[in-house]
């Protein structure tokens, strides 16, 4: 396996440009999923980076680029795998490089919503195939034969009848003169030899010896470190501050008032800049700040719940409706109703928020871990009125993201500090900053009502979502966030169905969190379906199957999870099982949780995941992501939540915002459906059904229905 590098090494391309020919292929993005393949081999000029996807040198060395920031989701390996499949090179004999941030040459590079593979699968196949065809044409010319007589494999083109072989390296000069096809012949999926195989990730050896560089690891000459005191009350304003004591701390250079934009709201703060992180932190402790915290001082989560329960009586917006819910529900003899509460959650990636920015008169440079490198460029361009071409974005591996690193607030603040100080400034948030400031996953109340008819089938269901809307905080977007009803299984064949919501505004800043609204809605929806099944006296898995009999993909994952979890084998008296399903980012998941009563305590014991994500690129990554989703889902189910007490977040660090640990991690068994459907997202899909499967399992064992998260496992 070749070594890989964290950041693109620009000198490599330049040296190659001088030393001789090479083949470089890239694309011009056309919208979200389309592109035009282009030959970049002749475009290398000083100051103009090639920024290809495929680079082959005369020595046959193949470099493939991943253009999606890597936060653990595995696209670092998966994107090059797709290219390598069509290019016909040995996936273990290539070098993978992280591409620069360049929306003109890489299109959208924002990693959110598990989009990397599903939006790029066709483009990447086309890329590899177009480059392969260029090499084949060059070879055919040398063989004095037709392209159809040639075959590409493992970095060689073979003339089939004569057995003559030429390596890609030898062909790059000729191939680099050719125009790529924009509709190259793609392989039949049955011929895939890389896609669908568990290929070891090339970024992993960098992450086991300390070599991998994350945003927090970057230093530049002349930089200062910033530690920033922000109001613990969300809208606190700085009335005045005294920095004299802070300035006495050795190493402290400046004290600045600053601010950051969070969804259109300006959040004020005071920053200490010093020549070391520790000096900045010590200086910050010595700051004296007078805050104006307004009436938010008296805020509590309890008040938000009171507001939500009140709002649940409102009519709300109807998102989807069929049949006549009100009429049927009124007349029904067998109706049930329930409220479900899911709390605010912190993202808490292990790498705390950080960013380094250097603002000068004619150039801005960013270094850091981000889910949205091009978003940072546009943000800084607008903030400083500078042409985007003068803004250099250096993005690194991320120590987790989960949605938090798609926001601009961290960069916005540190860029202001760099502009004030006139030197590169790196801000590192403390864990307390991270947990105390959010933005958080929205808390939500779900009100569900439904009824069962005489035959024991669901005859009506009303699902009402009461929550804040990410895109409608302080007048940001105008229409409700897409996906606000995510996690509700609208495919259930229930003749009278209504899906509606009441969107409320509160000052608690919220944002996208792994699987977003799916994580809250699915808990309520799949818990209530379980309640209906119980009311109907039906097996909860069969109850779902009947309502999804015409939905092939849901049925398939349900049947698979039933088989793999021994669902139909009656468990012993100390074991309970629960099921839940979801569709998230195009993937279908059915999940069975198994809990055991061991020495009087409830233990989440085994989680069986069945996932249909269409064509699988790297199966081991699907397994890894599903395992991770279950663990993160369990943290949110019974370990931790963000609560607001007296206007501030009650949790400060991992001592109060507890994460799942090794000792309490259950078995997670992941089973992947073989499919030829288009590939879909896997980074979030198994998270939403984790909590409801668990609480449904607890119900089946104990008869106790859990409708509020997080619950206390030792109190069940």
């Amino acid at each position: 396996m070749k070594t890989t590098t964290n950041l693109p090494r620009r000198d490599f391309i330049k040296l190659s440009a001088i030393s001789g020919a090479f083949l470089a292929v890239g694309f011009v993005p056309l919208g979200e999923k389309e592109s035009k393949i282009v030959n970049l081999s002749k475009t290398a000029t000083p100051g103009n980076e090639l920024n290809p996807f495929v680079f082959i040198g005369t020595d046959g060395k193949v470099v493939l680029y991943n253009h999606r920031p890597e936060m653990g989701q595995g696209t670092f390996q998966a994107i090059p795998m797709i290219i390598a499949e069509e290019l016909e090179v040995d996936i273990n004999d290539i070098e993978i490089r992280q591409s620069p941030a360049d929306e003109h040459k890489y299109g959208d590079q924002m990693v959110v919503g598990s989009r990397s593979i599903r939006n790029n699968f066709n483009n990447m196949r086309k890329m590899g195939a177009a480059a392969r065809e260029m090499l084949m044409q060059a070879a055919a010319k040398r063989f004095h034969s037709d392209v159809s007589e040639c075959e590409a494999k493992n970095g060689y083109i073979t003339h089939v009848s004569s057995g003559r072989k030429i390596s890609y390296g030898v062909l790059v000069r000729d191939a680099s003169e050719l125009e790529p096809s924009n509709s190259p012949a793609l392989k039949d999926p049955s011929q895939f030899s890389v896609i669908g195989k568990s290929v070891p990730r090339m970024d992993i050896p960098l992450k086991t010896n300390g070599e991998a560089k994350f945003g927090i690891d970057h230093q530049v000459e002349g930089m200062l470190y910033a530690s920033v005191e922000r109001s613990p009350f969300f809208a606190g304003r700085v009335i005045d501050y005294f920095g004299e004591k802070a300035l006495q701390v050795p190493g402290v250079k400046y004290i600045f008032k600053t601010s950051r934009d969070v969804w259109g709201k300006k959040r004020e703060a005071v920053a200490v800049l010093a020549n070391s992180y520790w000096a900045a932190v010590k200086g910050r402790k010595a700051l004296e700040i007078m805050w104006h915290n307004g009436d938010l001082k008296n805020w509590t989560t309890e008040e938000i719940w009171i507001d939500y329960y009140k709002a649940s009586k409102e009519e709300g917006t109807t998102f989807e409706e069929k049949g006549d819910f009100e009429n049927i529900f009124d007349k029904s003899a067998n109706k049930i109703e329930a409220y479900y509460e899911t709390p605010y959650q912190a993202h808490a990636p292990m790498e705390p928020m950080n960013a380094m920015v250097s603002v000068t008169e004619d150039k801005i440079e960013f270094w850091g871990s981000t889910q949205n490198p091009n978003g940072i460029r546009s943000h800084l361009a607008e903030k400083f009125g500078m042409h985007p071409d003068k803004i250099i974005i250096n993005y690194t591996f991320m120590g987790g993201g989960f949605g938090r690193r798609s926001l601009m607030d961290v960069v916005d603040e540190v860029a202001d500090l760099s502009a004030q100080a006139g030197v590169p400034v790196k801000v590192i948030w403390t864990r307390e900053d991270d947990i105390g400031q959010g933005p958080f996953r929205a808390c939500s109340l779900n009100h569900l009502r439904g009824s069962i008819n005489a035959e024991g089938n669901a005859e009506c269901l009303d699902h009402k979502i009461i929550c804040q809307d990410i895109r409608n905080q302080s007048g940001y977007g105008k229409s409700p966030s897409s996906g606000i009803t995510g996690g509700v299984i609208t495919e259930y064949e229930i003749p009278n169905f209504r899906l509606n919501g009441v969107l409320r505004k509160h000052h608690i800043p919220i944002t996208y969190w792994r699987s977003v609204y799916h994580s809250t809605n699915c808990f309520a929806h799949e818990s209530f379906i379980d309640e209906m099944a119980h009311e109907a006296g039906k097996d909860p898995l069969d109850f779902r199957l009947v309502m999804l009999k015409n939905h092939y993909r849901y049925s398939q994952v349900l049947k698979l999870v039933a088989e793999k979890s021994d669902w139909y084998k009656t468990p012993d008296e100390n074991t309970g099982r629960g099921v839940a399903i979801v569709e998230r980012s195009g993937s279908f998941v059915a999940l069975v949780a198994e809990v055991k009563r061991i020495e009087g305590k409830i233990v989440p014991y085994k989680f069986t995941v069945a996932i249909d994500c269409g064509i699988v690129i790297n199966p081991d990554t699907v397994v890894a992501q599903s395992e991770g989703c279950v663990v993160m889902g369990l943290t949110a189910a019974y370990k931790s939540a963000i609560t607001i007490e007296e206007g501030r977040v009650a949790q400060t660090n991992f001592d109060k915002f507890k994460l799942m640990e090794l000792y309490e991690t259950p078995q997670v068994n992941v089973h992947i459906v073989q499919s030829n459907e288009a590939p879909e997202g896997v980074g979030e899909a198994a998270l939403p059904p984790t909590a409801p499967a668990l609480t449904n399992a607890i119900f089946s064992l104990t008869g106790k229905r859990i409708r509020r998260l997080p619950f206390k496992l030792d109190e069940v």
Partner: protein
Amino acid sequence: MNGFVNYNTMGFYKLTVNGQLHSVEADPDTPLLWVLRDNLGLTGTKFSCGIAQCGACTVQINGDPVRSCVMPVSSAINSKIVTIEGLSIANSHPVQKAWIEEQVPQCGYCHSGQIMAAAALLEKNANPSDEEIHNGMRGVLCRCGTYPRVMKAIRKASAKISKS
């Protein structure tokens, strides 16, 4: 964050890190973590919580796993400090090998600490029970949820070490 501030002046400290002797200038209360990262450029050791609650900063001091984010540099003198960079040459430690074979890391940020904690555990007890592994890895957090693989990798490394 108003509170007591120590205005001590800087001092020079001799540290033995990964077999090399370094002299660093720092405030005596500077956590070893920041000296390793900022003074010595050993950025493999990670900051995450700052209060010894997550294990991302775990290094070995005289073979023991220590949370370097709360250990003042002044307490780290006269001891043998090993960081992830010094655990082995080219990922050759059995724990690192097992980590790669089991494809443990996702984002990877916590795994310097995970590996240093696991290596320290197996150094003292080459063949730990599941419960001993659980106890040895207490307080070493992973937000990506790689624990199922951490467990497999520790068992695998243990089997290799026990055999050799």
